[in-house]
């Protein structure tokens, strides 16, 4: 079962013009750097009028559910799960 976190994190986001791909490359959380190896799903939803982008990603050992609030331009680590 995923563990709820809901903490602010730093995310390094890559935007590739040639193929239109956008994905997180690194997450910095509690002073540790996690390199993302796979994006499972990128979806979005609205909370009221605010558009929230959700990236479900993994570094191979941990699963991360990241939320990007397009109003505040902040990243939140919503959940993690260990392999």
């Amino acid at each position, binding site marked *: 079962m995923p563990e709820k976190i809901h903490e602010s994190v730093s995310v390094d986001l890559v935007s590739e013009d040639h193929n239109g791909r956008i994905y997180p490359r690194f997450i910095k959380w509690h002073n540790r750097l996690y390199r993302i190896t796979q994006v499972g799903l990128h979806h979005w939803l609205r909370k*009221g009028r605010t558009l929230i982008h959700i990236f479900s990603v993994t570094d191979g050992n941990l699963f991360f559910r990241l939320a990007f609030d397009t109003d505040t331009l902040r990243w939140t680590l919503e959940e993690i799960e260990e*392999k």
Partner: protein
Amino acid sequence: MPNHNPSFNSYEKISFNPEPPTILHLDLNSCFATVEQQANPLLRGKPIAVAAYTTPNGCVLAPSIEAKRLGVTVGMRVREARLFCPTLIVLPPDPWKYRFVNRKLLAILREYTADVKVKSIDEMVLNFTHAPTLPKGMKTIAAEIKRRIREEIGEWITVSVGIATNQFLAKTAAGIHKPDGLDVIDGTNFAPLFKSLPVEKLCGIKLNNMARLNRVGVFTAWNFYQAPLPTLTSAFQSICGYYWYLRMHGYEIDDVTFGRKSFGNSYALPKFTEDRTTLSRLMLKLVQKTGRRLREAGYGAYGVHVTCTFADYSTWHHGHRFKSSMYASEDIYKRAIGILFSSPLRKPVRILAVSCFNLEKRALSQLTLLTDEEKKRSRVAALDTINNRYGEFTVMPARLVGMQNTIIDRIAFGGVKELEELLYREPLDVADVGS
């Protein structure tokens, strides 16, 4: 009645529809579980299940393909599922993820034909009869759709596709090979398939219909196909016999679109209760959700219907049509609570449901001479605007404080009109950044 059905004397035996198949039924395999495995690669290949609630009494909504192989089925309780599979990973549903995948899938399918029907969160039917893509060939189109789903939505997502001359047989074909199947039923191959299929395996034939058919000597799909029309009319004692006769011969009888007739919400209580205070708070929240959806779609309703399923599985329900149309949740609640407490039964409630029927399109611009009505309209519109801007239940009745985790967002079973309405309200390409 569809006008391409053959006219015939009821005592003539018609043959299987000779037209080439142009109906495609698409079914996302183990939808919720597959989407969760797509999102979290660490879950792939493992037995997982999405359950309404992750507690032992929670109902399994979607076991993964791996879990199904171990005997876990839809409708089981979590504790029963764990008996089949002690290592089962149980997840709560994430409706917005599934809606997103549904909309992405719909966007792909609409590139092939304009005639796409959303049957449920995981089933769609495409009609290629007049589609410009038809010359490509149905199987080629189906294979292309499967490839694009893997490339554009997610590599773990598989669909089973059925192709036939009508919706019923296309759905039957989609069920032949799961997961990731692609099967055709047409005039050249239906016989061996029908001979191997027990009649109760057909969609729409459950215990009662099976008994009706068995009584007239129909035990397999082949018997069903061979049965003369008078036999089927006698078995079903209604025009349904004629509809089944046409279905089994590959003619379309189900191409009917039903308009929106009601809006409703229901809730399965985790703790059964007959306490009026608890039930009235639950009813209040259900009505708030129903009222929002009713107004969002631009309707008012003359009728309110309440259903209670009790702990002993008995049911009580009552509906009433009122003189004036309602749109404000407070008015719907007053009517609904009156109906609920008019029930003569005093038993613990297991499931509570409310719905609004006899819908009327609201003319919001229509002026009113009644000051109170004008004030109510303004108040309701203002509250809806706030909730639209900041999120559902930002402003709510005080009695709902503390109920954030009660009656939470869920995907309804079966046909979901909101899915199509959602697509038109919020096109995917608004922020289509890919992944």
